[in-house]
């Protein structure tokens, strides 16, 4: 059992667990956090799961946990692990079931006061246009052949179908299309589940939110992202729905025999994996990339629903009801990226599970208008609390394979939250703060109560202080829609 005293504080915000602590660790593990967040890591199984991650074959430098870490399955949430592509492994459990769960931020050309009179109508229209909840179908239904094209082409499919604008695609991580997608590696069941759910929010912690930009920390970068104080913006948080869940489920099961075949010793069966360079590893990557693309399209189609809702309610009432896309980031993904390891450039398979890519100015693949400042990092807070827009840094490339936090991070189980918080009361409290709430169920609402999460501002102070990303703007919610 790893103890607090096993860790060494190597920097104000970095806590390192030497690999000598456990016989099976191949590299040291690092937690990012202040003293209080570090303490919180020992209240659940985060540390054990992080140490388990450090045992994976081919892992380089460190197994990392971003400051919003908490216990997950296999990797902890907030986990980042980069593997060599020649001797390393790829792990479906290292990405998670909701492949390319992520966040999209849309900006309006409107100030808070212009939208305020229509907020209730707008929330109702969003609820109608953006299907949410358990088992709900999506805005678009596709044939099996079309689905194959959708998951191969990602945002380009949406563009062709009139469900995207060119600038939406440019302002999406990987331009909304992860290369290497292979629909022949996706099960019939995953496709069946996926066909009906394109453009749906789902349930759980997924949400759609109207926010107001409350504070600007970096005016130049904010202006580049099109953000200004008192502006209305919209966040969409969701993933690849049943399609992605099924892909992960299929491969966590089907790779079990690969563990024996390739003589892999794993401390947790959820860490099941296969060599990156093996038929099993390539099959999973091909299927996962399909789910990544599915999620990009899902958020894209929802963004069009949001635009439609804004048009329905605001056309004729305000001068410009249009919404532009600031950016879209993935926070559950495995990608091939080049990083420097021991002074050498190396292609790595970077797993981010509840972690966001954070890259600075000049990074290849960023849209032309962001090349000079870096990538927008979107960090949604817990329901009813602040969210942040950050900008990626060069330092994150050195410290964390270009990764940072993805949210606030849970501290309380859903069960405990339900005991402590009444959904109806929470709704009333949020409404008293001027936040309009539409939720599928009061129970779902209570489970996502702010008290169940870490303070997102504290998490953001750590990533800002550690240099994993820099603060650009803080958002405050005015309307929340939950499945």
């Amino acid at each position, binding site marked *: 059992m790893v103890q607090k005293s096993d860790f060494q504080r190597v920097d104000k915000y970095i806590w390192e667990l030497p690999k000598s602590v456990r016989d099976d660790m191949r590299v040291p593990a690092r937690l990012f956090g202040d003293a209080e967040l570090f303490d919180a890591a020992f209240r659940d199984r985060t540390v054990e799961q992080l140490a388990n991650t450090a045992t994976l074959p081919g892992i380089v430098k460190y197994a990392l946990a971003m400051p919003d870490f908490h216990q997950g399955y296999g990797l902890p949430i907030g986990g980042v692990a980069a593997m060599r592509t020649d001797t390393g492994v790829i792990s479906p459990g290292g990405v998670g079931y909701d492949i390319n769960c992520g966040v999209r931020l849309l900006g309006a050309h409107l100030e808070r006061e212009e939208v305020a009179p229509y907020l209730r109508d707008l929330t109702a229209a969003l609820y109608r246009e953006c299907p949410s909840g358990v*088992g709900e179908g999506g805005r678009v239904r596709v044939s099996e052949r079309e689905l194959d094209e959708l998951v191969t082409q990602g945002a380009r499919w949406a563009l062709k179908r009139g469900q995207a604008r060119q600038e939406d695609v440019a302002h999406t991580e990987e331009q909304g299309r992860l290369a290497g997608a292979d629909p022949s590696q996706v099960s019939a069941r995953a496709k069946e589940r996926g066909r009906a759910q394109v453009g749906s929010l789902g349930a759980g912690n997924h949400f759609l939110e109207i926010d107001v930009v409350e504070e600007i920390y970096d005016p130049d970068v904010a202006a580049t992202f099109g953000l200004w104080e008192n502006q209305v913006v919209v966040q969409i948080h969701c993933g690849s729905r049943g399609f992605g869940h099924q892909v992960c*489920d299929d491969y*966590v099961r089907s790779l079990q025999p690969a563990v024996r075949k390739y003589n892999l010793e794993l401390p947790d069966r959820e860490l*099941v994996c296969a060599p990156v360079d093996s038929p099993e590893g390539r099959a999973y990557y091909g299927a996962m990339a399909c789910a990544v693309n599915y999620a990009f399209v899902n958020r894209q189609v929802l963004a069009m629903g949001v635009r439609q809702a804004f048009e329905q309610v605001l056309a004729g009432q305000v001068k410009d009801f249009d919404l532009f896309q600031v950016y879209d980031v993935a926070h559950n993904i495995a990608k091939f990226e080049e990083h420097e390891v021991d002074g050498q450039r190396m292609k790595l398979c970077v797993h981010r599970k509840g972690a966001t890519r954070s890259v600075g100015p000049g990074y290849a693949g960023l849209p032309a208008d962001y090349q000079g400042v870096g990538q927008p990092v979107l960090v949604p807070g817990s329901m009813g609390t602040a969210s942040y827009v950050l900008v990626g840094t060069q330092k994150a490339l050195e410290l964390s394979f270009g990764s940072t936090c993805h949210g606030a991070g849970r501290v309380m189980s859903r069960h405990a939250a339900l005991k402590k918080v009444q959904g109806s009361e929470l709704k009333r409290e949020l409404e008293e703060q001027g936040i309009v709430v539409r939720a599928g169920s009061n129970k779902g609402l209570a489970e996502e109560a702010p008290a169940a999460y870490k303070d997102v501002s504290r998490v953001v102070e750590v990533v800002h202080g550690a240099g994993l990303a820099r603060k650009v703007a803080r958002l405050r919610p005015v309307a929340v829609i939950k499945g």
Partner: protein
Amino acid sequence: MDRRFEEVEHTADIAIRVQGRDLAELFANAAYGMANQIADVDAAGSPTIEREIALEAYDAETLLVTWLGELLYLSERDGCIFTGFRMREVTPTRLRAVVRGGPVSGYRQSIKAVTFNDLEIVSTDRGYETTIVFDV
């Protein structure tokens, strides 16, 4: 309190501990426990839906995940939950069962998947026991 399963604390997801005198009972109790997480089983409509299930898997743990995943998929597809389980055959690698379920009125939560997180079916002096973590 229902003795077929017991809820276990987990920071972000949900977990249940189940026991059974034999594998068949363990699997049936796990399925019942999962149904109870999805919706209130007592409020479910009369069991009008019946499905035959036949599965094979690599080992007992994979079979358990496959079994629960199958029920999860059928629940989502047919908008029902399964509460009755006639286990015809359960070996560590093979399962045949007839399951019965009814329509759901009000979901408790959406389970995304059944995980392998620290999954191990262990023998006890009273049969078998395991803890299952669900991604929600």
